[in-house]
C-alpha cells in the first residue's frame, strides 16, 4: 500500500471521529474548532521538535583537527610515491 494511502486512511478515520463528535454531547462551537486546534498543535509540536533538535544538534569540532592530520599524513605518503597532491 502506498504511504499516501495510509495517511489518507488515517485522515479519514480521524475525520469520521470528529464528525461523530459534532453529532453528540459536545457543544457544536467547540467541536467545529477541533480541527483548528489539532493543526495548530501539530504545528507547535513540529516547531518544538525543530527547536529541540537544533539545541541538541550533535557536533564534532575535534573531527576537523583529526581530518587535517589525516590529510597531512596522506599527502606525505602519496607525494613520496609520485602522486600529485599539490592543490592550487
Amino acid at each position: 500500500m502506498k504511504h499516501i494511502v495510509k495517511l489518507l486512511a488515517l485522515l479519514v478515520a480521524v475525520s469520521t471521529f470528529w464528525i461523530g463528535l459534532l453529532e453528540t454531547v459536545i457543544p457544536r462551537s467547540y467541536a467545529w474548532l477541533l480541527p483548528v486546534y489539532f493543526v495548530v498543535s501539530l504545528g507547535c509540536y513540529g516547531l518544538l521538535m525543530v527547536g529541540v533538535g537544533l539545541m541538541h544538534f550533535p557536533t564534532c569540532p575535534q573531527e576537523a583537527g583529526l581530518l587535517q592530520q589525516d590529510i597531512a599524513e596522506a599527502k606525505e605518503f602519496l607525494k613520496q610515491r609520485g602522486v600529485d597532491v599539490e592543490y592550487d
Partner: protein
Amino acid sequence: MEINKNKYSIIVPTYNERLNIALLVYLVFKHLRDVDFEIIVVDDGSPDGTQEVVKQLQQVYGEDRILLRARPRKLGLGTAYVHGLKHASGNFVVIMDADLSHHPKYLPSFIRKQLETGASIVTGTRYVEGGGVHGWNVMRKLTSRGANVLAQTLLWPGVSDLTGSFRLYRKSVLEDVISSCVSKGYVFQMEMIVRASRKRYHIEEVPITFVDRVYGSSKLGGSEIVEYLKGLAYLLVTT
C-alpha cells in the same frame, strides 16, 4: 573469528576532486586493511585533471583495486551509481562522497554492523549520539533539522538521516532499489532509502561524523528548498 569473505565495491562519483580523491583513496586503504575491496571512481569528465591523479593512484595501489570508469561529462549522481554498479565485482557496494565529508574510518563500522545484523542496507547518520557535523552555521543546521522533521512527519521513513549518502548496500538490493528511483541530486538519496524502507529491506544505521568539505567547491547551490519540497511531495505520493 570468522573471516569476512565478502567483497566490497566502493563507488565514488567525482567531478573536479583532483586532490580529494587521492586523499580518500589513501584513507580507504589505511582503514580497510584485511578487507577485500575495490574502489570504482566514476568521473564525469573533470577538467581539473582528476583522472590523471586516479591513474597515478592506480600505479601505487594496483589497477585491480582502483577502477577508473569515466564518463564524458556531468551526467548526474543516480546514473553515476548505475554506471559504477555495472563494473562492480563485489557482493556489497558502498557509496560515498569524494570530498572527505564522508571519512573512510567509518567503513569498518558499516561492515561490522552489516555482519552482526545481516542487514541489507547500512546507512550512516549524522543525527544520533556518536555522530555529528562540523562546519555548519546555525542556518544550515536549522534547515537541516527542519527538513528532517518535515520528512519524518510526512514519510515515516524509518531512518534518522534521509539525505545522507554514505551507505553500504547488498549489491542485489542496490540494483533493485536503484531501478525504481527517478529523482535527481539529494532527493535521489532520499528516494533510495524511502523506497528501500517501503520494500521492507532490513536497514541499520551507524553514527558518522560529517566535516564540511575542506578542498574544492561544494556542489550545493540554487533553490534547494523548493527542490526539497517538491521531492518530498513526490515521495509522499509515489512511495
